[in-house]
């Protein structure tokens, strides 16, 4: 405490906030930040600057966005689509880094004993997906690759949880979902993967900060990215330990987590192909009428914080 008070003047350059408010969802895609949370890294670092950390957990994108809009969050994690939608609606945010890429963390699944063998068989079938999610994009891409469009299937806008139930009961023929539901359904023996994002969609998830916060607190954002990076490395080197550490945060057993974590490439670095992928996502949503006004992805992304943190 004493030293913290002493050091404060040095840091005030990039810190004006007294609090860092982090919005998360309890899914393994954000595992590094849960490692950091469990280890208390961020708290330790920011305590010196007199900044406290407040964690909020949401079970879906929309309430998280609403919370951002209400000015109650500073930094959060979202799928690429879920980040672009509010941006198009006027949300004052920027992407400060990537949280993960996981082509395998995104898949179209069918019931275990389904006769559907390839994506072509989806024609005329009932397929559930969360509208506007990156799984929605995957579905469209898979269909396109097989010479189909959304009009060739029965499109159902269904939440992840309800898709699981509907699959188990056989009410739908397929669902486009993401982790951890894919592994859970596979383990339950309810469903199998028909096709995942490999080579089709990278399944990007991004770190978003509000412009106001990012501009006034570059130091905090930097520390945040560093902590994330540290978590990411921890997972790479100690997957078993990491799984045990964050199991209760994401509500998945360590055994399942060990299977899921390798599907994710946890690196905050934004490569050019990632940016290209985001642009494709934006284009898709514009064409599908999911967003009404275009989003300039180049302007949306701000890599300066990564650079400042020395993460490449």
């Amino acid at each position, binding site marked *: 405490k004493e030293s913290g008070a002493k050091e404060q003047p040095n840091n005030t350059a990039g810190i004006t906030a007294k609090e860092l408010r982090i919005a998360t969802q309890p899914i393994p895609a954000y595992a590094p930040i849960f490692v950091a949370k469990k280890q208390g890294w961020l708290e330790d670092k920011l305590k010196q600057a007199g900044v406290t950390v407040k964690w909020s957990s949401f079970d879906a994108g929309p309430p998280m966005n609403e919370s951002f809009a209400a000015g109650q969050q500073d930094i959060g994690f979202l799928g690429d689509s879920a980040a672009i939608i*509010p941006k198009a609606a006027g949300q004052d945010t920027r992407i400060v880094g990537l949280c993960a890429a996981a082509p395998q963390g995104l898949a179209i699944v069918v019931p275990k004993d389904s006769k559907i063998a390839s994506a072509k068989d989806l024609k005329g079938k009932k397929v*559930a997906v969360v509208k506007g999610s990156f799984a929605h994009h995957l579905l469209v891409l898979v269909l396109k690759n097989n010479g189909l469009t959304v009009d060739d299937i029965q499109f159902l*806008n*269904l939440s992840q949880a309800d898709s699981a139930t509907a699959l188990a009961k056989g009410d739908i023929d397929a669902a486009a979902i993401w982790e951890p539901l894919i592994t859970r359904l596979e383990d339950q023996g309810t469903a199998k993967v028909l096709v995942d994002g490999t080579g089709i969609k990278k399944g990007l998830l991004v770190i978003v900060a509000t412009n106001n916060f990012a501009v006034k607190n570059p130091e905090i954002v930097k520390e945040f990215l560093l902590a994330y990076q540290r978590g990411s490395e921890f997972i790479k080197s100690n997957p078993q330990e990491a799984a045990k550490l964050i199991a209760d945060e994401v509500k998945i057993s360590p055994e399942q987590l060990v299977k899921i974590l390798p599907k994710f490439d946890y690196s905050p670095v934004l490569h050019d192909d990632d940016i290209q992928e985001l642009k494709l996502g934006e284009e898709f949503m514009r064409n599908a009428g999911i*967003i009404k006004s275009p989003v300039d992805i180049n302007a949306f992304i701000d890599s300066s914080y990564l650079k400042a943190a020395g993460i490449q």
Partner: protein
Amino acid sequence: MPQKEQSLRAAGMRLQLRPRSLSIVNSLQKVKLMKSVQFVILPVLLLVIWQLLFEIGIIKPVTMPPPTKVARSFLELAGNGQLLKHIGVSILRVLEGFGLAALTGIVLGIGIGLSKVLDRLTDLLIQVVKPIPPIAWIPLAILWFGIGEPSKIYIIFLGAFFPILINVLDGIRQTDSKFIELSRVLEVSKGKFIRQVVIPGALPAVMTGLRVGLGVAWMCVVAAELIAATQGIGYLINDARQLSQPDVVLVGMITIGVIGKVMDDLLKRLETRLIVWKTTYAGD
């Protein structure tokens, strides 16, 4: 008693009344106008304040669009026929779910209200199932009825059923014991007793139940249309929420509100039709 003087005075009173009654006609029109103004003043005021807050920048458009934007969205949705389509689908669902709930609620309510055995048989189940919210039923509804219409109807039904049942029961339990004695003395048949004593006596409560039930049914549309819907006013709201379109969310909310009010008015009118024997208080 100077009788003549008195009657003259009284006649004078009557004469004096005439000019007053003329001015009454005038002021009646004024009163009527004032009344209409009173009906809309508060909502209009709120709209104006809302718009003003937006104009001076206190409300940000991304989170709470101004009335003008909501109005534009409304016109757009109404213009391309989308809104009407959603409304039609939702009304149909509400009517189906509510109709089912009204039927079973009234029949079961009368049965349980009249038979203590039935009451005891069903009491625990009703009491425990009643407080479970429609949203919590969605997983089971999907399980039992799939993701098609039936599960939506079921959610709406559940929501409307209990208010109706409880009000019917309360109405029956409040049957005046004096009329029960009368019916026992006259050995009135069970059927006649139900038709001519219990039901008319419970009618005000039943109508209240129907009105509350219809309200809840409307509410449950949103919950029900969370289930894999591709149409309906609840779907419109859910969809808009997913796509961060608060203006469309507001259009949906207001639409639900207006239709709910119209439905309630219809039920109220039915009520005054049915209950002609009452002389009650309407405030002053």
